[in-house]
């Protein structure tokens, strides 16, 4: 061991011998940014790495611990960028680029704009599913698709009615229509990226982060159900036929009454859970009413 290394070792040993110096050394070693950040406010104008260290120190101490260790080892900015983005993404927040951390919690909207012709070009598999609603899919280049009046009312009524079914497969189809007609109640599923960009982003406060994680997890779950719903509808022609009939019923009710009073609407659905058992499923509210009447 050379003299300098020996000196270092002796110094380190001396620092650990006194309780106060040991405490100071521990803080300097494990929490070197302890005096750098305000507990409540994040300065979003500062550099991304500082923001990331403040965010992780407050909310994800395990990431902060790793980041400090890497910084002490002399990690480059690019390495810190990769480490922090990967670790924060693993917590449920999709951060792809550290430079964007100052914009607030990143979130991706997956909502549908049925007036956007591009949607129909990308999702050609959904055209048969949307056809019963009377949407004229664009055949030539156009800026906007004309939608039938009350389309969203009918679409949301279908989604709501399917959610009330006991068959889990029908409820998955319900999420499909909730997504298509922007009525799931989850902003990431109901809003397009353009709509989301008009809303102030969530901050990196602990409460906002917790809310964002919940929102993103819920949106992911809904989109898994949406995908399952698409497959169910594609593979169950009887259910597609029932859908067409129920959409027609709702349009008729709208035409007669001028509105859809959802609690009084009774629709019957074909069971979609098992291809061998695709019998008609009555609306459970309807059964309840009949039971009460008896």
């Amino acid at each position, binding site marked *: 061991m050379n003299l300098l290394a020996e000196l270092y070792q002796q110094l*380190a040993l001396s620092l650990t011998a006194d309780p106060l110096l040991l*405490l100071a050394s*521990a803080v300097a070693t*494990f929490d070197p940014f*302890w005096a750098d950040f305000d507990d409540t406010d994040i300065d979003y104008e500062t550099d991304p790495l500082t923001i990331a260290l403040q965010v992780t120190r407050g909310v994800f*101490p395990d990431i902060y611990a790793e980041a400090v260790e890497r910084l002490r080892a002399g990690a480059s900015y690019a390495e810190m960028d990769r480490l922090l983005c990967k670790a924060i993404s693993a917590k449920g927040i999709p951060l792809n680029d550290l430079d964007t951390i100052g914009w607030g919690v990143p979130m991706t909207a997956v909502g549908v704009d049925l007036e956007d012709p591009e949607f129909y070009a990308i999702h050609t598999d959904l055209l048969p599913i949307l056809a019963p609603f009377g949407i004229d899919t664009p055949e030539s280049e156009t800026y906007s698709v004309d939608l039938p009046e009350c389309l969203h009312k009918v679409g949301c009524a279908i989604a709501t009615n399917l959610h009330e079914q006991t068959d889990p497969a029908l409820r998955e189809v319900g999420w499909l229509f909730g997504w298509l007609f922007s009525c799931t109640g989850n902003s990431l599923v109901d809003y397009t990226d353009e709509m989301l960009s008009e809303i102030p982003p969530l901050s990196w406060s602990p409460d906002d982060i917790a809310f964002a994680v919940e929102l993103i997890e819920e949106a992911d779950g809904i989109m898994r159900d949406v995908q399952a719903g698409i497959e169910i509808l594609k593979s169950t022609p009887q259910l597609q036929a029932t859908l067409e009939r129920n959409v027609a019923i709702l349009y008729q009710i709208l035409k007669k009454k001028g509105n859809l009073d959802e609690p009084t609407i009774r629709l019957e659905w074909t069971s979609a859970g098992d291809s061998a058992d695709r019998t008609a499923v009555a609306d459970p509210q309807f059964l309840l009413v009949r039971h009460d009447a008896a």
Partner: protein
Amino acid sequence: MFGSPLGLDDLHTCLAGIAPVELKGMGLLREQPHLIAGASSIPRQRLVEAVTEIVAYTGRCAAAARQLANLTPVPIRTIGIVEFVL
């Protein structure tokens, strides 16, 4: 104690009598003094526990310092500190 004069020495003795804080990070440094120079590595779980505890500790210290800095004057009628002619 109340009602009897409290000298600066007494106050010093009182504060000095507080047991030193013992944090996991301090234990790690005692075990591996090389950590101070960053020349050693620690199992991830122990590192995370140490950092989490120290972050919470420094947070409490900062909060206490803020509270002390913003203390409103308290009239002391029952304690005498002779050094300040109280």
